[in-house]
């Protein structure tokens, strides 16, 4: 696993260097959150749908083994090959093995956060396989040698000028062209050629149905279908928590997914795969990669209910102002910050602190994951396990000393107020993190407590 060179706070500082850019990023995501609100309010049963989805997913967590076994049996009956991978390395080897067996060295891929989590592209490229991401946003970040910065909107951190320059360099579009219509058309032509010439296609899985052995893939662009239906071999990769018990349950999840993600009532394409087409091979790779460990963590297992809609990111005041890349994890934002420490506590110890604990993420989550509670609980686990830097720990200890002793607290407040009045530069300087992007307030003449003692009669 690669070492993190900059923690979330450090990377956010860099992201915040350009103020108009951060404002634009913030507003763009807030706009998506707003579309989600409008769309969800059209359904009077919205809250009941969330509760229902959450309890179906809870049933899934408590019956995962039998549901997976039934899914596997049905899929095999349907003529689909099923593979199991304990970790990222096994997953990547299975995919490479299938491609080698068919002597294929070029593959198209539609969106799969799991393959990002497994760093599959890097692995395949090292082994001589040319992987083309076909979702427009993913193709853009792939050409830039970057990971996606958002699970639903992979290139949300980029301006159209960036993409215009990128396409000019790689796809030969006119220099300086930034019209989204024109740039998208160029990508369509470029990728159509890939779809028509690649013999293997890899897709993610949004939902896998235990009852039928089938799986559903949702896209707006149609890239998963273009790839899968033209290829000789279709490989679908899924984290094992993607299971739902019955096909009818899709009614609940498909109503929630797109509305929560972008405010659309449904994605353009909700493709239900069950059997390979004649002459085609279909493979499913079921991946654990830490999920069974998370299942055993009582406080954190609910994170496995996630359907990857991205609503928690769009609403998060920290995500909107720090960008997806600052989370140095395949899944960014609030949900990523409770999934990441499970994968690697020491590498991701900063992420549960990248939150104000305002609770907005939990309020928009379509499967009612208690995201902000889990962030709070991870902090405690991480401090106890010694993964939090000394400075932060010392600060928390000092804070606790002050706050737990009323007299000491009153005294510190008085000292603080007179210092701010007498020598304001002591707090109005770059060493004070509260001074960043803001002026310190005028210190009040007296504390509320002093005022109350005087006035309560």
């Amino acid at each position, binding site marked *: 696993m690669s070492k993190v060179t900059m923690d979330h706070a450090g990377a956010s500082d860099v992201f915040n260097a350009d103020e108009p850019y951060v404002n634009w990023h913030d507003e763009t995501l807030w706009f998506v959150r707003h579309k989600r609100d409008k769309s969800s309010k059209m359904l009077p049963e919205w809250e009941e749908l969330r509760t229902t989805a959450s309890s179906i997913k809870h049933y899934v967590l408590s019956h995962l083994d039998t549901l997976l076994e039934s899914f596997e049996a049905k899929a095999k009956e349907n003529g689909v090959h099923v593979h199991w991978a304990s970790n990222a390395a096994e997953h990547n080897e299975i995919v490479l093995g299938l491609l080698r067996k068919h002597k294929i060295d070029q593959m198209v891929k539609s969106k799969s956060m799991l393959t990002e989590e497994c760093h599959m592209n890097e692995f395949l490229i090292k082994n001589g396989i040319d992987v083309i991401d076909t979702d427009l946003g993913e193709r853009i970040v792939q050409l830039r040698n970057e990971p996606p910065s958002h699970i639903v909107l992979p290139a949300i951190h980029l301006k159209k000028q960036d993409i215009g320059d990128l396409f000019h360099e790689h796809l030969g579009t006119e220099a300086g062209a930034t019209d989204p219509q024109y740039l998208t058309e160029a990508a369509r032509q470029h990728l159509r050629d890939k779809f028509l010439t690649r013999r293997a296609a890899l897709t993610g899985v949004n939902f896998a149905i235990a009852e039928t052995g089938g799986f559903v893939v949702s896209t*707006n662009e149609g890239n998963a279908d*273009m790839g899968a239906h033209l290829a000789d071999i279709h490989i679908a990769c899924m984290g094992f928590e993607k299971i739902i018990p019955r096909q009818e349950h*899709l*009614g609940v999840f498909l109503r929630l997914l797109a509305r929560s993600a972008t405010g659309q009532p*449904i994605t353009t394409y909700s493709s*239900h795969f069950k059997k390979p087409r004649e002459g085609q091979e279909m493979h499913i790779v079921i991946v654990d990669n830490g999920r069974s460990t998370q299942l055993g963590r009582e406080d954190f297992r609910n994170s496995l209910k996630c359907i990857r809609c991205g609503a928690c990111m769009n609403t998060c005041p920290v995500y909107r102002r720090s960008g997806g890349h600052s989370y140095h994890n395949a899944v960014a934002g609030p949900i990523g910050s409770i999934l990441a420490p499970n994968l690697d506590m020491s590498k991701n110890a900063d992420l549960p602190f990248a939150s104000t604990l305002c609770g907005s993420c939990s309020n928009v989550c379509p499967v009612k994951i208690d995201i902000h509670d889990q962030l709070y609980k991870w902090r405690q686990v991480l401090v106890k396990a010694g993964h939090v830097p000394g400075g932060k720990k010392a600060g928390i200890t000092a804070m606790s000393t002050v706050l737990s002793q009323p007299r000491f607290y009153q005294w510190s407040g008085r000292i603080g107020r007179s210092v701010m009045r007498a020598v304001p530069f002591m707090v109005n300087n770059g060493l004070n993190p509260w001074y960043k992007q803001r002026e310190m307030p005028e210190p009040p003449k007296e504390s509320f407590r002093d005022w109350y003692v005087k006035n309560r009669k």
Partner: protein
Amino acid sequence: MSAREKILQQIKANKPDATQLPERFTFNSNFSDPQAKFTESLAAVYTEVIVVSGTDELKYKIGEMYDGVVNRATTIPELSDWADFSLNVSDPHELETIEVAILQAEFGVAENGAIWISDKYLPHRVLPFITQNLAFVIPRKSIVDNMHDAYKVLTDTTGWGCFISGPSKTADIEQSLVIGAHGARSLVVFLVDSI
């Protein structure tokens, strides 16, 4: 131990106590006019819904709409005179030059404008995606209210099927909506009383 056994064993050891599935997981939308709602949902994704009484009117409409277009394909026997592109090919890659495909589909969903199409009505799965322009023909009486109702009627046991709601689109460049990402650049839905 195989990865499969290891994973299943870990899950057994770590899973929470068993809970039950919720008894109720469907909701009624009770639209007073499902066809109007369906039309409105599709208008929001740049798709026109056209009501035609039967085959003759359908033929007249498509003759008008796709006048001058070459490489026209259809899965509807009554329209075979109109088509100039045969779907009787063995390799789906050969469909690449199709300009417009008019396809029989099964039913529509009012709440989101989604239309179900499957292997049952398709000689090639890639057809609704690879064609430059797409039209569906569905029975006017087939529209259901919402996705719960959709899965109640979805008894399809074929190998593949898809809900399609509108033309292919993307907003990956600065959230600007662009129609025609990889799949069809346009969609038209014909509601037919009888065919």
